């Protein structure tokens, strides 16, 4: 947001390409689409019970589980996503377009279908799960299943923002380093990674935020048991059955946690 605002001002100051005013109208409408629902949540939070609600055992257990699983998912996203983005942006492998579409898949799949798909692969009767089950390994109903579901839905966010960063950065420095005799591994670690660090950071934050909010794939693939698989979104979904206002309080907690994490990691560095 701030980054974009600054660009606008800079553009205006240079007397060059200032934005036409009318752009502000749809932009403001779009913003309203985000702000109004947030006001809706705020209007329903039972403030008198707020502290008690968000410090209840069920809410805290769910929050801790969410933070733990989303952190592990983010680490997995970085470990798997950085190489994927490198291959997509620099790999010059045949079929890159197809690969990119495959990476986009979790973004267009309804999360519930994502969960079912994971079940069909890793469930007791799944393509791989059936064999694993014979070996005594069952993923369903475990915290690992939550992490897998979250990684599945978050990975595209990291890969896509990183690929964007890689394409924007170009490979001039890498070429120079290579002509000076640096080996590919050294170029990657000393040049590429530092260059794309801001993009990596913002991709990781996006992935974390997506993992934190993940619900559909989790409930379908992992289930819902307090302390094991019931993340904060699952707890909110359940809470609304009996006490929608309490669900609003827990939703606000989720929003606040996500905002705090995003601000803490990105800070004043405008990386997107």
């Amino acid at each position: 947001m701030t980054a974009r605002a600054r660009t606008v001002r800079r553009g205006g100051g240079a007397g060059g390409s200032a934005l036409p005013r009318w752009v502000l109208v749809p932009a403001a409408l779009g913003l309203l689409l985000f702000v109004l629902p947030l006001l809706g949540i705020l209007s329903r939070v039972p403030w008198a019970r707020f502290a008690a609600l968000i410090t209840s055992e069920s809410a805290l257990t769910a929050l801790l589980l969410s933070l733990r699983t989303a952190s592990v998912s983010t680490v997995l996203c970085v470990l798997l996503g950085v190489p994927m983005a490198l291959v997509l942006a620099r790999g010059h492998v045949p079929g890159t377009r197809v690969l990119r579409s495959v990476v986009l898949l979790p973004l267009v799949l309804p999360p519930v279908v994502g969960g079912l798909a994971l079940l069909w692969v890793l469930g007791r009767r799944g393509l791989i799960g059936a064999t694993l089950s014979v070996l005594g390994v069952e993923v369903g109903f475990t915290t690992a299943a939550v992490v897998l579901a979250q990684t599945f839905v978050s990975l595209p966010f990291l890969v896509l923002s990183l690929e964007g960063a890689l394409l924007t950065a170009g490979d001039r420095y890498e070429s120079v380093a290579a002509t000076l005799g640096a080996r590919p591994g050294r170029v990657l670690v000393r040049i590429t990674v530092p260059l794309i660090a801001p993009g990596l950071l913002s991709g990781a934050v996006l992935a974390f935020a997506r993992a934190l909010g993940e619900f559909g794939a989790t409930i379908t693939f992992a289930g819902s048991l307090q302390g094991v698989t019931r993340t904060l979104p699952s707890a909110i979904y359940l809470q609304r059955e009996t006490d929608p206002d309490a669900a609003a309080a827990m939703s606000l907690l989720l929003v606040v946690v996500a905002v705090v994490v995003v601000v803490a990691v990105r800070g004043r560095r405008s990386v997107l």
Partner: protein
Amino acid sequence: MRGRALVAGLAVALLAACGGGEDGPSAAGTSSAPAERTLTVFAAASLTATFTQLGTEFEAAHPGVRVRLNFAGSSDLATQIGEGAPADVFASANESTMAKVTGQSLTAGEPVDFATNVLEIATPPGNPAGITGFADLARPGVKVVVCAPQVPCGAATETVEEASGVTLSPVSEEPSVTDVLGKVTSGEADAGLVYVTDVRDAGDAVTGVEFPESSAAVNTYPVAALEDATDAGLAEEFVDFVTGPDGREVLQDAGFGTP
């Protein structure tokens, strides 16, 4: 160039979406000429099959009437009605959810009980874990999935546990019967506690195991015409239809009990 095309495409899509949204009701309005009336029924998700059939039969018996059905979890429906959703009739899967609606004076007249439902054990086809009764669910190594206590089927599960003295250690407490059934049909769980009607509805996808302790928790379904019904008489007629002989037959075929 490509960017502009994209923006144009988005704009067209948006217009189409908005246009569609406005078209819907107005088109319905023109087709529902003077004689046509629409009855909106909010019914518990477990009534999907039966109420779809009853809606069709009601339309056949009342020319010019169109029955619009909205199925969801009872508490979601109760919340929607409380928020002013336009509904004429509400059929709930339990009495406490109906009580929320009557408590806000949103029903016209007393709700009428029209069906009952009890729990049954659902296992994957062929019952691979060899479950024969409720006590088997507490056997170590048996993966049992139940509804969370916050939802009616979970409350019923707790009641049966207390009455039978058998304590379950489920691997998951799901937010709805559908989720429990999903875990059973996929073979992820060895057994799940759902309603008799769900087992019948699932057909060959599950094997049902009835158990006598289920009588400790009989779920009663009430139906009521709503205070804000657009056509109070028609809403009452639908309630009478559901609670009358035609309704009873359809409900019994689906496995529901008589209150």
